[in-house]
């Protein structure tokens, strides 16, 4: 069960509307290494984790990724705010507009819709935790490329926060991996 707090985990400010940047950033909404994929991956894999710590970490981080999803949604929305049709067309979002107007939809920067094929739920906790650690590194790298693409200090401030969270999550998954590996080792010899 979840409790919703009607506020963002971190402020989502942008210096100015920027449709081109919205097109790049939306990959963190519905792209392969984005926040939706991260959240769904962890919240699904948690059921087959063998220790309560691993279940708890996947639940906590999967929940926090939903908070990040909300921040990305806010940022994309603000970047698109009051964009003219000319700006939308110039940024290569004419096809997006035809399908969605200015509404948010789960796509990557190229408009490819989100798919569950982006994530795995292998049933092997060691394999799944490795995927989770890789997912955090890929999301961190994506935030770095987005910061490179952006010249908006306000937007970059939020992107830097989200990037740092990926590093913290990697550490927590790494700790979960040690716990799970030790647990599986002791189980083997009894």
């Amino acid at each position, binding site marked *: 069960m979840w409790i919703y707090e009607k506020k963002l985990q*971190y402020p989502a400010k942008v210096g100015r509307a920027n449709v081109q940047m919205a097109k790049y950033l939306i990959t963190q909404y519905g792209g392969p290494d984005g926040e939706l994929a991260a959240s769904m991956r962890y919240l699904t894999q948690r059921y087959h984790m063998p220790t309560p710590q691993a279940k708890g970490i996947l639940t906590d981080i999967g929940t926090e990724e939903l908070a990040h999803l909300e921040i990305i949604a806010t940022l994309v929305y603000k970047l698109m705010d009051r964009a003219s049709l000319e700006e939308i067309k110039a940024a290569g979002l004419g096809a997006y507009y035809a399908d969605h107007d200015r509404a948010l939809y789960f796509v990557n920067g190229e408009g490819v819709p989100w798919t569950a094929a982006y994530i795995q739920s292998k049933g092997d906790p060691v394999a799944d935790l490795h995927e989770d650690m890789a997912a955090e590194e890929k999301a961190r790298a994506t935030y770095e490329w987005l910061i490179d693409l952006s010249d908006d200090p306000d937007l970059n401030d939020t992107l830097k926060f*989200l990037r*740092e*969270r990926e*590093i913290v999550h*990697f*550490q927590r998954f*790494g700790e979960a991996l*040690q716990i799970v590996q030790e647990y599986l080792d002791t189980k083997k010899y009894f």
Partner: protein
Amino acid sequence: MFTPNDQMRLARAYVPFQIFSKRLDPMEGLLKGTIFPELYFPYRGHKR
């Protein structure tokens, strides 16, 4: 190069456990994205 100890085996990934020591104050932690100074690795940008 990292030297394995006798607790470790091959074909396995290891992340050291974080030991609680220092903590930033909550507002600074929020701004940085972590309250743990030893986990703070800001992006400096790529030189290309």
